[in-house]
């Protein structure tokens, strides 16, 4: 080989320093930012955040030794260092037991947590609360969200006003390419699909305004499918839906058809329900005598609506 490799450690060290500085800058930049996934406002999201912290901590048990060993070995066993050299040594049962054993233990632990939380945080699982659950039907349209409150006889475009500390039971469908409903401050997302009805349970534990998003590309107006979630106190909620139930704008068949046209909507809209709740008819649009009845996504029956038992977690 031509010239020897000089100062091998120089550049990796400089690079590591630069990277650490960048991370520091990044962390500083993030101070004071609103980071909904890490600083949520609803109990579902809080539990999900706790899981994130927990899994990172578990992973660190493996990752930190890997980085330490990498640096240490690269340094100590570099050619110029003339350290012990055992070119034929390629087995060590003790070590293998350790690095099979510890990851297995971690994964076992994480698997148990996974099993538990997949159930406790199942979007189909009701949230136990003293307050009565609010039912909201959600329809993803191109390119806005239709929210129907069947018990309050109100419908809105892009405005999800809900009472605080009240479990909300969402039924979700779509007349749009596959979309997904997500409010990071309150909890995880679920897909919305034509001809199907999926479910989600969320609860807001702080008064405030949050942003909701569509996470699955559904055409040109995809990035405009944001909506606002207003968590308000009970009195305000009552006033809100009572006012809009009397709205001049009604969610009639004709208006629904016009809403189904591909169009972005900047301003929220508030409607009454003069012709009743159109949610089932929206799903029916794609059913047309197909063999399967209104499925709850991939499950098929309504036993996913059970109130949860004591699996630790949701209240």
């Amino acid at each position: 080989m031509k010239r020897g490799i000089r100062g091998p450690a120089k550049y990796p060290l400089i690079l590591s320093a630069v990277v650490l500085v960048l991370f520091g800058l990044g962390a500083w930049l993030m101070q004071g930012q609103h980071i909904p996934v890490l600083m949520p406002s609803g109990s579902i999201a809080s539990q999900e955040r706790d899981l994130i912290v927990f899994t990172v901590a578990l992973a660190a048990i493996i990752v930190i030794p890997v980085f330490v060993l990498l640096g240490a070995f690269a340094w100590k066993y570099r050619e110029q260092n003339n350290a012990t050299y055992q070119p034929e040594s390629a087995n060590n049962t003790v070590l293998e037991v350790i690095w099979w054993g510890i990851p297995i233990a971690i994964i076992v632990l994480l698997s148990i947590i996974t099993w538990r939380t997949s159930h406790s945080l199942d979007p189909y699982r009701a949230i136990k609360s003293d307050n009565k659950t609010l039912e909201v039907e959600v329809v993803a349209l191109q390119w806005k969200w239709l929210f129907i409150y069947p018990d309050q006889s109100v419908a809105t475009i892009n405005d999800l006003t809900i009472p605080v500390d009240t479990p909300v039971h969402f039924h979700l469908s779509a007349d749009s390419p596959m979309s997904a409903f997500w409010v990071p401050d309150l909890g995880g997302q679920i897909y919305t699909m034509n001809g199907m009805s999926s479910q989600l349970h969320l609860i807001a534990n702080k008064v405030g305004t949050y942003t909701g998003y569509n996470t699955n590309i559904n055409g040109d107006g995809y990035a405009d499918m944001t909506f606002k979630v207003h968590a308000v106190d009970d009195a305000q909620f009552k006033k809100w839906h009572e006012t809009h139930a009397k709205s001049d704008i009604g969610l009639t068949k004709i208006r629904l058809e016009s809403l189904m046209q591909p169009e972005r909507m900047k301003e929220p809209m508030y409607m009454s329900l003069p012709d009743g709740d159109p949610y089932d008819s929206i799903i029916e649009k794609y059913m047309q005598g197909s063999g399967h009845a209104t499925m709850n996504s991939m499950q098929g029956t309504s036993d996913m609506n059970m109130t949860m038992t004591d699996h630790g977690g949701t209240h």
Partner: protein
Amino acid sequence: MDWLLGRFSLDYLPTEPATIGAAIGMPLGVLAVVALLTYFHKWTWLWKNWLTSLDAKKIGVMYIVVALIMLIRGVADAFMLRAQTATSGPGGDGLFDVSTFQQVFTAHGTIMIFFVAMGLMFGLINVVLPLMLGTRDVAFPWMNSVSFWLFVAGMILNNLALVIGGFSNGGWLGYPPLTELQYNPGPGVDYWIWSLQIAGVGSLLSGINFLVTILKKRAAGMSLGKMPIFAWSVLVTTVLIIVAFPILTATLGMLALDRTMGMHFFTSDLGGNAMMYVNLIWAWGHPEVYILVLPAFGIYSEVVATFSRKKLFGYGTMVAALIAIMFFSFVVWLHHFFTMGSGANVNAFFGIMTMIIAIPTGVKIFNWLFTMYRGRIRFTSPFVWFLAFVVTFTLGGVTGVMMAVPAVDFQVHNTLFLVAHFHNTIIGGVVFGFMAGITYWFPKIFGFTLNERLGRYAAYLWQLGFIVAFMPLYALGLMGAVRRIDHYDNPEWVPFFIVSAVGVLIIAAAIGVQLLQFAYSIYKRNENRDLTGDPWDGRTLEWSVPSPAPEYNFAIAPTVTRRDEWWYAKNELKGRPHKSEYSDIQLPKNSGAGFIIGVLSFCFGFGIIWHMWWLAGIALLAIVVMIARRTMNDDSEYTIMAAELFELDGKRFHTEKKVSV
């Protein structure tokens, strides 16, 4: 004229400035190459020495060249995306209209996976595998050529969309119903379908080819347990290819049937089920990412052992880990859509299966680390790529384990957090691995080494660029930024998007350094000639032949008695073999059929996309004829006589010097 031109029309020419630029620039680039070839009278040379060659090494180099050109296109796409998001926050207008943006991110993902990663992978395997196994070529050299030209046909279709028709806007996996006629009647999605379908057939054939090569064409004495571990990684990969790619073929086929024959597999109405597509495409999609990364793992094993001058730690466990990863990669696909509402039991099962893969993967990392332990490490650029891999890929693995927990995934799925994760693992694992491989095996093919210093700088820049481009995306995801958005309202996100755009520029600079490395190394090649065939003091058989490797690889078929045969055998060299030890060898004659089948496949795809059914029909028929002709061809080989081999081989015994590094 309807039947003649189908739905082809000049109305489909681009109207957006950036696309017009590309639509003019790309053909100009091609024309420039054509002009150069004509001016220097190189057409015959190109046809005889490269395009019709059935030598796996040549085919491999062509794959890599195409893949690297596509890498430049892919990074250019990436820069467009990040330039857009850096300038489209509140108050900003961005640079491109949303339709262009959506086509660009779809093209970016499609090109990077199918034409860059797969191209580099097949390229390196072609170059290295036969040499490493001690054999002359792959099992089916003619089919190998066909695979390559199918790859090229797919690549050209993909890029042609920029010139006329527009590309799909449905993301690299094209979920229906967005990609159905209801929402996307134009040719864009069809370009996407057929470029992948054609390239996919090529991939499947390559999978069969390489598996048969490994199982049937190893050198005498090389049992599977004495095979280099890179070959094991290829073996496992080919099994994945053979089992997974037909699923892609079937699924894309069904979508194509929906679109061209009005069927209802995945439509919203008349009983179609879009969720079925999601399941099928990911049943292919997850094995696909292991197809990409496992050969890279194989490369790391070779690189770490060679540059630590030490035996690979735990060969047996490494093989077991590869096989475990292979099996598990088939039972995790649902983790790509935990949020589709499959229920807690199903989600939990797939989540747990996903986490289990982390175990053999982690074990491999420890095995590599302890290969370094008590070795004598040389910080060559392949080794630097390996270091970058460990750092980068491990981080990606962490976020992967996080998202394997369904309840966590609910909050980060389809956000920029996810985007950061998969780039983390693909760049750290796949890209860095193939860069290491290219640098490592370059001298074997071309006879001189690449400039080491520039190689290391490129690696550092890639590492830095990766961090600057993707760490902000993790933060953005947690802040609520979803993927594939072309604009946003939240001012807090702007600085992060700007930093990310700078990161892409750094990566572009890194690629610039790599191009400079190639140019400079070619310029300085006489000073860096590999005169011994073993520039790195390697361990495996490819280093026992001269550089550049002769067409026939080994003048005398080698016999193997142990693992890392060359490492031990090189100290037992017996000098020039006697004339009687040489035998005649048969090599495949060149064949233009692969090229022609590539052209015909392109015509087939083009015909279907534009509804020119006559063209598709004739092309398909012609392909069948070409294949039938080959099966009846009994005169497809030529002989190199033993005496000639003796002479050719003798040259290297005059120039060989003792290996010194």
